[in-house]
């Protein structure tokens, strides 16, 4: 079987989602470092040929070419997690994970843009982005607060799933755009649990001590 290739930018939280999953699944792959900022390599012909949307990450596995973190995560879980631990097979569990994956790509997009704005001077209305990011974090904190009343430790079900891995980067990196963890106590406790998942890895901006 040919080697999996991940087109990756080290400082991008969407790429980190996929690196994190590959690490907890212990799936070997070749990292193709892309100079996204400042180089803009993802917008040049070779990568646009793989992904016309001009986004990272991009995953190649044999004939398959996939872009966007959440679909890549779904593929990797189905293809390489024989026990269906990370993507449940029952209707409820699958739908709940799908809902949080969409939350990660849509509602948390404001957090991604706020971080781009703060770190790389990307355009954007800082106040509006912060407001939207904080609103999404609060929804997550309310959810995990309610989960704790049921003695549940994870976003969905009784074990960590793709939902936890897809939601973790935005809040763990929120200090990059000056949103503290002060007002998200249930997320602080959940982040500690995520950090203890076997195979957990960090990225720049997420300290590895703890």
């Amino acid at each position, binding site marked *: 079987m040919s080697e999996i290739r991940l087109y990756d930018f080290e400082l991008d939280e969407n790429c980190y989602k996929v690196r994190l999953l590959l690490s907890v699944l212990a799936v070997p792959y070749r990292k193709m470092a892309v100079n996204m900022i400042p180089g803009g390599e993802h917008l040049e012909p070779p990568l646009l040929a793989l992904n016309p949307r001009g986004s990272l990450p991009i995953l190649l596995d044999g004939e398959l070419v996939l872009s966007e973190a959440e679909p890549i995560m779904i593929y990797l879980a189905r293809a390489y997690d024989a026990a269906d631990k990370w993507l449940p097979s029952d209707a409820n569990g699958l739908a709940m994970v799908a809902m949080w994956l969409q939350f990660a790509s849509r509602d948390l997009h404001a957090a991604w843009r706020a971080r781009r704005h703060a770190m790389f001077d990307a355009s954007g209305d800082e106040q509006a982005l912060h407001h939207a990011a904080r609103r999404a974090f609060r929804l997550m904190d309310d959810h995990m607060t*309610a989960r704790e009343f049921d003695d549940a430790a994870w976003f969905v079900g009784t074990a960590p799933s793709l939902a936890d891995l897809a939601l973790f980067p935005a809040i763990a990196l929120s200090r990059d755009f000056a949103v503290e963890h002060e007002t998200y106590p249930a997320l602080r406790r959940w982040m500690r649990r995520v950090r203890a998942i076997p195979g957990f890895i960090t990225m720049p901006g997420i300290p590895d001590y703890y």
Partner: protein
Amino acid sequence: MQSAWYPIALAEGLERGTSVGTRLFGRELVVWRDAAGSSHVWEDRCPHRGMRLSFGFVRDNHIACLYHGWQYDASARCRYIPAHPDLAVPNSIRVATYASLERLGFVWAYGELDRADPEPLQFAERTVTPVRSLYVEATTAKVLDALASTIDRAVDNAASGTQCSRTASLVSLAISGDEILIAVQPLSEQETALHIVIAGPADVHRGASQKRISAWSEALRRKLETSTSQIRPGATS
């Protein structure tokens, strides 16, 4: 900030070996729990170069600064400087601290730095079941007004039994059969934290009661953040 006791966290939510930054009237505090289980409340500023200690990390019974790794023990004295491992660190290098204690399921801090013998906290200890901390974008006065409109009684040093005073930091309410205690933390001019517990043991109140009261508090937060006018027209306290 008045010299008084203020709630700053839910005790159970603060896990051993962790720290978190918080605020009182805009001042930055770090609250942390050591490996032995004791909680500490300090000014959130490293004496070296002023880094926030809540960005650092807790190891055993000390807290280490994220910048240059200076380590402070539970008495807030600096005991180790990684750049000078053989140095006997002078006792004068210490973090400014707030007197603190845990009661009724809350961590309380006295609002005056390095105050050695603050007056005692008036509230007696009771068995409680923690619910949650709720962070609201509203002034503390507005929060207390809203609580007063559903008030049973306010328990604070000055309260006389049936009304809620503006300086109350602890409010007691009856909500569908449960007695709940709400400790109110003024974070800044515009933000307030409500730390919420149920009076009574956890084996009775955990689960359904916690969920009901948490949902009630989210509705209160919505009301506080959307209404621009007085919650209770004509209310004075």
